[in-house]
């Protein structure tokens, strides 16, 4: 834990100069034109949090409808819209933007010793497209025409013939639109990780969180085109009368499933990989030891993403594919277990052989480990084809994926929110309330989702707006609904804790937990320029290398590696992070938000099938893009 001593006068002058160069204006204009990765991370945080709340309300309505048999809280049509929007919201608008947009954006440059992402304006653009596309999708709900064919929208149900209204068009166009945001983010992360690491941070000295972001970014770049293809084909069928999925014209509805799940399965690893990264950041800090088998864990994170591309048809074991194909996919699905098993064992061993401090962030990670084990084990069971052919499309699967999504992605997010709250806000949260919030959330989560395993094995199918009273499902559904309310209470406790702590929490220093990564070397919150001196890095646990951190202070005093001539950050070579060149970074810009809004208009026109107007707006977008690229990034 560092103490901050007042820097000598020369150093203070340098800090002031850096401040003047990097500081962005406050107020609405400042936020609309921001290119600071920290501000963008905060914008992502609150926006994805808002969508998480929306998805949570949808979930509570679903659970309330299923409280008892033959429920009448909502109509069948509204229920089907709710369950579709719940899936779409949670996956595309909440969990992924939260992890990649909020955590990834805020932390990655700090962890690699950089002053911003490689493409700061592209970063801002990603956020604004995310916001506008989310609004686009939710406009469907405002006009009473939300998509209602499930988050994977199988055809022919999703075709114009069986879903004649605009709901599915909101789905197809909205997700293509959101995909632009995510693809841009992924590209930004890859380039940042490869080129902007502080000189000396060779790839084997990069923190594990960054490995997770690298893996997830590659997965996104390769998976999203498959989804976009499927969505474009579907929209062409729906709007222009083509027949990609139309059996009568030689099309194939099963092709939708292949295209969708080729994306959809890597998507679930995309959901979970950043959470692995958060866990690997929290565990060493609270276990007070380095990660066991660091290299194996880093490799495993990459392998999960890679092998995850080969398993997609395990979502299709009941479609009637040839046996030999199914056997291949089942084998691949079992192979993908191995990297997860490696990581689980390494995490548990690290905790067990360290001196773990069971404080709130670590409690959430231990909860994550327990829940991920359960979700992972039920996942292994579904790789047994005959068992899957009974469990598929029942609540057993709903239980499985909520354990891996909520348990294994959201729990680390909650732990990470607590962990980095002091860094972002400069205040400490309340530890006792934190522990209470963990236990209530953990209890609520299990109470909601564990009985789903049972009720699924009692034959309850998924996506049913009600169920009969004579089949033995009623009591379990009641428990699940009560659990959902308890879970909501736990989550609200977290929010309340953080809201109150934001105002009245004790001031946090640079490093309240004894963290191992570089974000803990700067103030809480970090200065606009992140690092006064580009840090020297000798290991993946840069904060624990005290000599290097003391050398940084020496260099500030001597003016070495401060890079104060403008918006400057160094770039380095890909593998060994030798000095490459000094980059000039852009300052605030209107182009990202304007371009995002114009693109929103393009998609809105396509939804309304005013294609000529859409083309007009696309031309306008081209002009904005030209304006964006007109000049090199300016020195402040």
């Amino acid at each position, binding site marked *: 834990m560092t103490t901050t001593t007042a820097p000598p006068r020369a150093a203070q002058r340098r800090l002031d100069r850096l401040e003047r160069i990097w500081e962005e204006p406050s107020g609405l204009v400042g936020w609309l034109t921001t290119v600071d990765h920290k501000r963008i991370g905060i914008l992502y945080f609150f926006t994805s949090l808002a969508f998480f709340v929306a998805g949570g309300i949808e979930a509570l309505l679903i659970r309330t409808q299923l409280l008892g048999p033959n429920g009448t809280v909502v109509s*069948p049509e509204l229920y089907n819209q709710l369950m579709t929007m719940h899936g779409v919201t949670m996956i595309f608008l909440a969990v992924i933007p939260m992890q990649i947009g909020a955590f990834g954006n805020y932390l990655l440059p700090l962890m690699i010793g950089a002053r911003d992402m490689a493409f700061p304006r592209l970063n801002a653009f990603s956020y604004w497209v995310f916001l506008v596309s989310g609004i686009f999708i939710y406009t469907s709900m405002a006009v009473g025409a939300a998509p209602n064919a499930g988050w994977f929208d199988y055809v022919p149900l999703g075709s114009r013939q069986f879903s004649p209204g605009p709901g599915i068009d909101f789905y197809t166009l909205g997700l293509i639109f959101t995909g632009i945001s995510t693809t841009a983010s992924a590209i930004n992360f890859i380039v940042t990780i490869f080129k902007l690491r502080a000189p000396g941070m060779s790839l084997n000295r990069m923190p594990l969180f960054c490995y997770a972001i690298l893996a997830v970014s590659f997965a996104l770049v390769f998976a999203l085109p498959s989804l976009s293809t499927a969505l474009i084909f579907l929209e062409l069928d729906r709007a222009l009368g083509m027949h990609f999925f139309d059996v009568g014209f030689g099309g194939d509805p099963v092709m939708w499933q292949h295209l969708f799940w080729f994306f959809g399965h890597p998507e679930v690893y995309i959901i979970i990989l950043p959470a692995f990264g958060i866990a690997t950041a929290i565990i060493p800090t609270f276990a007070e030891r380095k990660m066991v088998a660091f290299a194996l864990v880093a490799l495993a994170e990459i392998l999960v993403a890679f092998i995850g591309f080969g398993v997609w048809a395990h979502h299709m074991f009941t479609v009637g594919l040839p046996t030999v194909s199914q056997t291949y996919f089942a084998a691949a699905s079992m192979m993908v*277990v191995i990297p997860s098993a490696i990581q689980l064992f390494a995490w548990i061993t690290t905790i067990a*052989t360290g001196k773990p401090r*069971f404080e709130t962030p670590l409690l959430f990670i231990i909860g994550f480990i327990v829940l991920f084990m359960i979700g992972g084990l039920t996942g292994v069971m579904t790789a047994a084809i005959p068992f899957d052919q009974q469990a598929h499309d029942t609540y057993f699967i709903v239980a499985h994926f909520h354990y891996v999504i909520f348990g294994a992605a959201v729990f680390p997010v909650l732990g990470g929110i607590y962990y980095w709250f002091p860094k972002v806000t400069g205040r400490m949260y309340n530890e006792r309330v934190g522990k209470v919030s963990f236990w209530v959330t953990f209890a609520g989560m299990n109470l909601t989702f564990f009985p789903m395993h049972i009720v699924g094995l009692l034959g309850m199918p998924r996506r049913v707006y009600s169920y009969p009273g004579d089949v033995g499902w009623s009591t379990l559904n009641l428990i699940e609904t009560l659990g959902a309310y308890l879970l909501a209470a736990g989550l609200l406790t977290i929010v309340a804790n953080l809201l109150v702590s934001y105002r009245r929490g004790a001031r946090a220093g640079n490093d309240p937990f004894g963290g191992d990564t570089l974000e803990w070397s700067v103030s809480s919150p970090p200065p606009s320029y992140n690092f006064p001196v580009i840090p020297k890095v000798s290991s993946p646990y840069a904060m624990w290398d005290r000599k290097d951190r003391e050398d940084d202070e020496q260099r500030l005093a001597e003016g070495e590696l401060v890079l104060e001539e403008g918006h400057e950050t160094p770039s380095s070579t890909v593998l060994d992070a030798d000095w490459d060149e000094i980059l000039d970074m852009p300052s605030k810009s209107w182009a990202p938000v304007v371009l995002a809004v114009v693109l929103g208009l393009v998609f809105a026109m396509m939804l309304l099938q005013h294609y000529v107007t859409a083309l007009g707006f696309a031309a306008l977008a081209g002009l904005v893009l030209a304006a964006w690229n007109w000049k090199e990034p300016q020195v402040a």
Partner: protein
Amino acid sequence: MSVGRAVAGRPADPRRGRWRRVAPLASAVLVALLAGCGPLSPLDPQSEPARRISVLWWVMLAVAGVVFAGACVMLVAGWIRRREWGLPVLGERPRLLDGSVVAFGIVIPVITLVALFAWANVGIVQETDSPPPDAGMKIEVTGSQWWWQVRYPGTPAVTANEIHIPARTPVTIVTEAEDVIHSFWIPRLNRKVDSLPGHANRVELFAERPGVYRGSCAEFCGQQHARMGVSVRADPPERFRAWLASMSAPRPAPATPLARRGEQVFMSKQCASCHTIRGTPARGEVGPDLTHLKTRATLAALTIPNRRGYLAGWVVDPQAVKEGAKMPALDLTGPELQALLEYLESLR
């Protein structure tokens, strides 16, 4: 900062110990809850394929339980030993730890998974795989939004939602969809197969004893996916043959004047444009065949019982029973409804 201080010799947090004692009791309760519970449970198998899958499940659960318990033991050990570095007795041993990650993260999982793969995906899958196209007795089941048409090839027999089969006889269900993707599933007899438009899937049903086996559509197919039940009734072979013979016959001629009036109402009120009643001009293909409607136990795909009052409600206001159903509400007078009911109830 941490919860509960350790006192020499006693674990600091009694809650954890209590939880571990509760776990075996909880699992016993769960097993009791599950055993033989409910008419739609794949864990109440009534045929060999379903039984083998059920056994597979219990073994997987047991192995998963062992793995999970092992991990929990390690976490609890981490709690108990949180003031000491490294392994018990052995202390700090990085190479040993790396080796244990390889052993428990790679070697043991690979062995377990290969065993599971061999048993389930090479062994059991041969039992549950689709029967060959030329196997024995076939029944064609076509999924529509939101009901199942049931045909017996080689006979004129057509019915809906309630399939009869001979007990102790292998029967191949050949299923396709009329519109969107559905999925045919009788959990206690075998796994599910999707009903696709334009591509037939097959699943074998072999009921070891006579009885009724409930199922449901198992692929989201639109507004009333939740109300698309299906059932299989297995009868002794002679009873089945008698049933099939009566189902193959045209409708029994209406015997009373009221029933004859009812048939006129049926023909004049658009019913014939969607429904078939063999032996009459009604040849509609949109909705279920009604030739022997009264032999069915339920209406609207197992949504309501097939009794006079329910039938009346269904015919007069289908949207109240199954919102979104393709059947329009008919504008019937009281006497017309009474006649129609008399007629429909005569269709044995």
